[in-house]
């Protein structure tokens, strides 16, 4: 599976493109094909479902549900996508990302780096075909940024998912060979 970096200055339209790719924003023209599915021809409800099942999204901010603990946040991803909760899968993902001990912690109790790792885990639990990350490192320090990028690339590879990362962060570009400059 391919891994692409989407580079560009802020305001160049990286996020807009990612939102269009993830089915969050309808393009004025053109089409998005994922696994031969024309995304914007689906009904609103089916597109929500499709996104939940096939696309994992990591945002600049972790956006975890604050009233739920880490494990519940992962389960939420399955429930909202209409999938069965796979408890072992959830634990395995947490384990892979080195945050298994945080499973019963609430978002308020975690650091920025830990939160971003949980949001990566959430994007992965449904075994998506496409992993999309929008500025995943911009609010992290060097060490955490490197770890998160490393996780995204290795997890995407392990799960057989295509990866697109949009960023203007120079620390990220050294990890990628394929870049698209917007």
């Amino acid at each position, binding site marked *: 599976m391919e891994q692409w970096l989407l580079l560009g200055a802020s305001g160049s339209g990286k*996020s807009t493109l990612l939102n269009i790719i993830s089915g969050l924003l309808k393009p004025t023209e053109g089409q998005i094909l994922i696994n031969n599915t024309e995304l914007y021809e689906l009904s609103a409800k089916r597109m929500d479902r499709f*996104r939940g099942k096939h696309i994992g999204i990591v945002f600049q*901010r972790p956006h975890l549900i*604050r*009233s739920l603990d880490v494990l*519940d946040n992962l389960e939420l991803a399955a429930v909202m996508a209409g999938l069965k909760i796979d408890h072992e899968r959830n634990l395995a993902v947490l384990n892979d990302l080195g945050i298994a001990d945080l499973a019963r912690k609430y978002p308020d109790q975690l650091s920025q780096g830990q939160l971003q790792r949980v949001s990566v885990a*959430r994007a992965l639990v449904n075994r998506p075909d496409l992993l999309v990350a*929008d500025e995943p490192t911009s609010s992290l320090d060097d060490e955490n940024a490197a770890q998160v990028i490393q996780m995204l690339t290795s997890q995407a590879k392990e799960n057989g998912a295509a990866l697109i990362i949009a960023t203007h962060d120079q620390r990220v570009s050294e990890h990628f060979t394929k870049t698209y400059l917007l």
Partner: protein
Amino acid sequence: MNIFKISYKNLARNKLTTILNIVLVAFGVAILSILFLASDQISNKLEKNAKDIDLVVGAKGSPLQLILSSIYHIDYPTGNIPAKDAYRLAHHPMVRRAVPLALGDNFNGFRIVGTDSAFVNLYGLSLQNGVFWQKDLEVTIGSTVASTSNLKIGDTFFGAHGLTGNGDIHKQHAYLVKGILKPQGNITDNLILTNIGSVYKMHEEKHGEIDLHPNLPDKKEINDKQITALLIQYKSPMSVVLFPRMVNQSTNMQAASPAMESARLFSLIGVGIDTLKWFAILIMGIAALSIFISLYNAMKERKYDLAIMRCLGASKVKLFFLVLFEGILITFIGACFGLLAGHLALEVIGTFQESSQAKLTGLTIIRQEGYLIWIGLLIGAVASLIPAMQIYKVDIAETLTKDR
């Protein structure tokens, strides 16, 4: 993990707001349930006790007081009527059954009623143990009297003068318990029944003491026997118009109809009940407003949560119901607590009530209370409708991409 857990967790996170809203709903529902239960029980009692009594004849005074004292045994009697006149009425051709009552004494707050066997037939009394009273100073007691004062057959006790309290005890004569009634579910559970002669005997003795001083008019009054009231059952409904008019115009006594007086009583306390009802409705309205405001305000913060859930694959409809469900959950919990509190409060009121005749209980359920739960659910749904509709306005892409 499901939609219920998400709602529940979110409510648990905002504990104080949730508690405030639950308390508001519970308070409104509790007041309404107390009103429903109390008015149901009171009207039930009024109806049951006056079931077969068409008319009460007693001394002139307030007709409501006459009804309350001689049917419900709550208020004081209006006075006495000459037994002679009462018996003349009792044998009137329009009268099927007439029951004389002689009141005036009590035992631990339970009224001692002097009457005759017609009383047994009027209320359809049956015995649990022993026999009905026959001779002077023999009594048959109601089931509540037996259980609260621990009287058994063969026990004796002294009556006290007056209708409440143990102030002035008639120590000269003791009553002897001859029988205990089966629970009847009406006023007779709280009465001590004896013959009229016993009541006379008590009071003759008392006046006898005074008699040591020459006091002729007093003695005269005793010789002209008196009773307190006469309960009357008509032979035919035709008498409803004629008989009371006859009593009121041609004798020195008054006739009062239980049906009319209970209706009047209800219209009197009705104002208070209506006021309380509107007060409770107002509180429910405030509860709805409070739920609305707290959900609406929370939407600003929850916008991100809801956007992320959309992003994870939840449809707009699903999230609409998620918010709606939260409002409904609050009012449902509130309504349940309210019903519980209402019943508890009424039971507590019942235990502190002095008059054992009109005791209220919180241990019964009536159908209107089911409506209260539905009303609660409806309020929750209405209050959360507008906040829930915000779901349709949230722009996920913009919300999630923008810095929080």
